[in-house]
């Protein structure tokens, strides 16, 4: 049995313009301790699949088919206390924009203390400083006193990682944790995420659009397009010999692979030029 089993999952959002299908039968299994990257572009459904693991969909969204099982338990059938327990004991989230997810009215120390006390741990200054030291913050005593808006993006992300890892989650879901960071800070933060996960043996589900970075950190990659996983396999073989035409076009569009004089077209464009419109992700209107 895998730790995460997502089978044929359909997720729909109710919007003023009708129902939008964000996931259209996505299937993904991940074993304990695995590092898996889910790659796709805006609107492909990767954030939805990330939040679906903890049933953390926004209020206007819901499961419309398929199942999500975490450790054998069907998340869709859990009641509120059950969901809370799952989220508290099993899941850790690292957000895209850490400054926005930290509480702007509380100092870093106060927020860390909330998490640690909840777990029955030691919330003394020294213990909190130790937590920050583990995520390689150079001057933890100073950072504990700061408010989120006084942190740089990289530092805020380290704090978010410290908060997520304090619970020793079995599953760590990182939703583009480096999208808002500089290239050089990016590498350090990724190193931190994967080293922390290695130490605790957590399964990492990393949502990303950066194929270059994926190649460095994950042995397995799943590619999403329009609410489905269209390709799933060892990173090396997916990047070397992609099978799905969408993956091929995605690879060709990577800036490091762009060549002058070689025209690159998007998959949607290719489909449109081949035969009419591609099957649309919108249902009803």
């Amino acid at each position, binding site marked *: 049995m895998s730790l995460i089993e997502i089978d044929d999952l359909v997720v729909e959002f109710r919007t003023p313009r009708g129902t939008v299908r964000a996931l259209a039968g996505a299937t993904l299994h991940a074993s304990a301790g695995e590092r898996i990257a889910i790659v796709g*572009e*805006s609107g492909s459904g990767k954030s939805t699949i990330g939040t679906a693991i903890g049933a953390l969909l926004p209020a206007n969204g819901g499961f419309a088919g398929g199942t999500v099982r975490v450790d054998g338990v069907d998340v869709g059938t859990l009641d509120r206390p059950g969901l809370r327990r799952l989220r508290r004991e099993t899941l850790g989230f690292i957000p895209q924009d850490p400054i926005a997810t930290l509480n702007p009215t509380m100092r870093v120390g106060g927020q860390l203390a909330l998490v640690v006390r909840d777990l029955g741990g030691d919330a003394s200054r020294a213990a909190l400083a130790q937590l920050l030291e583990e995520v390689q913050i150079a001057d933890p005593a100073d950072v504990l006193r700061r408010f989120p808006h006084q942190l740089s993006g990289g530092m805020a992300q380290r704090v978010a990682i410290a908060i997520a890892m304090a619970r020793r989650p079995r599953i760590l879901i990182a939703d583009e944790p480096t999208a808002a960071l*500089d*290239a*050089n*800070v990016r*590498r350090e933060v990724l190193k931190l995420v994967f080293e922390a996960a290695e130490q605790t043996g957590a399964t990492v589900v990393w949502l990303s*659009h950066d*194929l*270059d970075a994926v190649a460095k950190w994950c042995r397995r990659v799943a590619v999403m397009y329009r609410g489905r996983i269209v390709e799933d396999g060892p990173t090396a073989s997916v990047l070397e010999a992609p099978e799905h035409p969408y993956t091929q*076009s*995605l690879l*060709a*569009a*990577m*800036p*490091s692979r*762009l*060549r*002058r004089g070689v*025209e*690159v077209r*998007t*998959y949607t464009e290719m489909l449109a030029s081949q035969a009419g419109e591609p099957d649309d992700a919108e249902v009803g209107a």
Partner: protein
Amino acid sequence: MSLLELDTVTVRFGHGARTVHALREVSLAVEEGQTLGLVGESGSGKSTAASVALGLRAPDAGEVRFDGRPLRRRRTAGEMQAVLQHPMWALNPRMTVAASIAEPLSVRTRDRAEVRARVAELLEQVSLEPAIAERRPHELSGGQRQRVAIARALITRPRFIVFDEAVSALDVSVQAQVLQLVRRLQAEHGFGALFISHDLAVVRYLADRICVMRAGEVVEDAPTEAFVAGPTHPYSRSLLEEL
């Protein structure tokens, strides 16, 4: 003679002990019809260099020359344009696409027919459907918005355009489309460009020459081929290894 030159430009923020050097004796040049790629991390001074090049900020020391003469905003109106990272902030949300594209030209001419013709021409050049002209920015995708911003920048036939992280907020495949578009338009229009990005891969694709900034200083400035073959500064080397 270069199209645009920064000659030992220094820009300081703050006073006394709190003074920060945003630019420290920076010299760089953009040639007619060519692209200078400017790479560096946040806080390295890239965007300050751009605002100095556009004449939006006067240097504390040094000189900016456009066409060999000291830069004066009034004289260069319409000859310089900018395309920024977030087209949502660059486009007026209450204006239609057609009005946004037309604006830089319609403040200079009263010939409405000419403006309309130019807008149609530019929509086609940036590969947007004519029907998009009547939409507003919130009804467009990120890639479409950036195409509108590029069309708006091109309507006055500028000789110099600054692209400040213009593709950083876009998805990879959309990014590739916009990069290809910029290359094609440059071949057609022959504008000189200052292309700012933190992504060396993007700059390598577009630029004829690459300039690396760090902490307000230029640490490397070389033709793209030479840069890729072997940068001299250790920081440039580390950037190249990241690719």
